[in-house]
């Protein structure tokens, strides 16, 4: 059997409290997006398109919809005999129940899962970003640089830099230090929350971190600073392209509206890098003689008789005559 080179661990257990009502009953990665998708589709599709076929999905907060949605991973071609997608919820041990108390603790508690595949690298991902990225390129970069850890970074506008985790680097793109939401940023390279680690290095760091009672069990706050302190080689991997953290209602809405922009760089129509999702199998959309549709994204099963402009309609939405929809996001089965 071919050895698994890289295991992806997708952090999908966060509450996403800044999305308020949208995440009352579902986890953030399961929030609908773009007329057809759920946010996690982008990360899972990136995995399968990058040739990563072993993905652990860490769930904790409101997992029902997310678990049902992921199923055995067939929508993303991740129903594999070896590897595939595995949902990893927190579990009880003989003495206590161990909740995931931070991103690092979630991975620490699943060391056994990763050890089963004994991979060379582990890719840490989060399920709340909208972007298309070839992780294989990042892993290649990590190998070439002989890094212990590689963090994917994106240039953000200087005035916004204090909202992100900022990586300060030298000219070789080696990370010298990390600042979480700095007041006076010295750099504008923001962490995208995507990490590649040499598994042996991460394994050791996780165990060490678990023994530190003061740790908040967070990759950004604890693991990366610890590796830097130990003079491990940590590199930044610059990413160019569309990337959006959809952690707030505003950014989620903006990301949807970006799709309507004709110059938008996130191309959903590129057949070589499809974004897969669980398909609803509904008839094509019907646009009636009275309807008017402009600058919109409409999914199958919609029945449009009214006026729709700058809107995103999810499957099975009916827009009646005389209805006016402008700058809207309509999710499943609104009538």
């Amino acid at each position, binding site marked *: 059997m071919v050895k698994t080179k890289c295991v992806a661990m997708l952090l999908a257990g966060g509450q996403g409290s800044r999305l308020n009502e949208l995440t009352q009953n579902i986890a953030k990665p399961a929030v609908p997006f*773009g007329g057809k998708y759920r946010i996690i589709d982008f990360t899972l599709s990136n995995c399968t398109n990058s040739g990563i076929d072993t993905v652990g999905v860490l769930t904790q907060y409101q997992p029902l919809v997310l678990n049902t949605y992921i199923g055995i991973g067939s929508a993303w071609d991740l129903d594999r005999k070896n590897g595939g997608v595995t949902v990893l919820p927190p579990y009880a041990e003989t003495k206590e129940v161990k909740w995931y108390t931070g991103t690092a603790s979630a991975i620490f508690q699943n060391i056994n899962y990763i050890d089963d595949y004994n991979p060379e690298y582990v890719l840490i991902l989060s399920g709340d970003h909208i972007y298309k990225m070839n992780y294989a390129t990042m892993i290649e970069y990590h190998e070439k640089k002989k890094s212990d850890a590689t963090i994917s970074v994106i240039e953000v506008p200087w005035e916004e830099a204090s909202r992100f985790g900022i990586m300060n680097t030298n000219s070789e793109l080696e990370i010298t230090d990390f600042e979480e939401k700095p007041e006076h940023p010295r750099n504008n390279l923001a962490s995208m929350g995507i990490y590649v680690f040499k598994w042996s290095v991460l394994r050791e760091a996780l165990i060490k971190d678990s023994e530190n009672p003061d740790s908040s069990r967070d990759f950004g706050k604890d693991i990366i600073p610890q590796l830097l302190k130990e003079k491990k080689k940590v590199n930044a991997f610059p990413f160019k392209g569309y990337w959006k953290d959809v952690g707030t209602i505003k950014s989620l809405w903006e990301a949807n509206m970006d799709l309507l922009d004709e110059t938008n760089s996130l191309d959903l129509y590129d057949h070589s890098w499809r974004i897969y999702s669980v398909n609803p199998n509904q008839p*094509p959309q019907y646009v009636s003689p009275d309807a008017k549709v402009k600058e919109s994204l409409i999914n*199958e099963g919609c029945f449009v008789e009214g006026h729709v402009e700058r809107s995103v309609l999810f499957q099975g939405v009916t827009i009646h005559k005389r209805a006016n929809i402008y700058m809207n996001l309509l999710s499943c089965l609104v009538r």
Partner: protein
Amino acid sequence: MNKNILGVIDATTYLDPLKDLTEQRILAALPFGGRYRLIDFVLSSMVNSGISSVAVFPKYHYRSLMDHLESGKNWDLNRKRDGLFFFPAPNLDIPFHHIGSFQCFSYHLDYFRRSTQEYAIVTNCYTVLNVDFCEILEKHIENGCDITEVINEGRSLEIYLLKRELLIDLIVERDKTGYQCLYDLIEDSKHPYQVCTYDYEDYCVMVDSIQTYYQTSLELLNPSKWQELFKGNQPVFTKVKDEPPTKYAKSSNVTNSMIANGCVIEGHVENSIISRSVKIGKGSVVKNCVIMQKSSIGENCVLDSVILDKDVRIEDGVRLTGSQDEPVVIKKGAVQGVLMT
């Protein structure tokens, strides 16, 4: 649910009037209604009627059909027990005997013998309808019939229901009885069987010529017909394609049309059926057309009463005009430039 019926789809039919659309594909795989293939309608009807074992008998150019059906997964027919079976004709020179050729079935007699279902439903592959076969079975039993033929307005829909054992007898004894198919038997006035008819009154069309194909396609724009075909509790299944939602640009103007996913529309579309992943450029007018998947229409084109098969490329500024009775048909994969028209 009714696990008591075997589904048999005869997909051997070749119809000359549909030649332009079936040169490279079997009739069963002819795209229809924006995202479907003709076989989806009988096949989904079977699945919705609880039929869990379906045999498909293809003959010519069935690569596209195999590609479409795959393991039967999209119809939930990728089962350990029963499921979807594919029985291509072992040779192409079998004389054509109407739907349900017993000779064709005889090559795969094992399947009929090994199955445990009491009844079998034999259908063609080009009737567009959404029928509950259980109702037909109920009537069949109630009236003590040997064979039930489904008709619509006096015309046979080439759908027959009979006991599996009887079907096996008819296949085995075909040379003795002289009946080469179910049609022969029903046409013979001296047959010893109790033959009934079941009048199916909902929307149904047998797609047997370019004209019917074209008219039936555009009829889907009538919401009442649409609703008779796409019933909420009896969905029509098809191969899913992971296309994104369709994008309507600022310059688009769409009216009375059915549009599948994955399209980018920048022009004017009227009274048309647009399949998956079609591009329609700025300033183009598409009227009364059936556009199949992955075709692209450039800028400033005018297309009226045209059928574009799959993967056709229409270059900028092309004008094509057909008529309601004789739509222009552009064959699969063609490139149409201005100078050629």
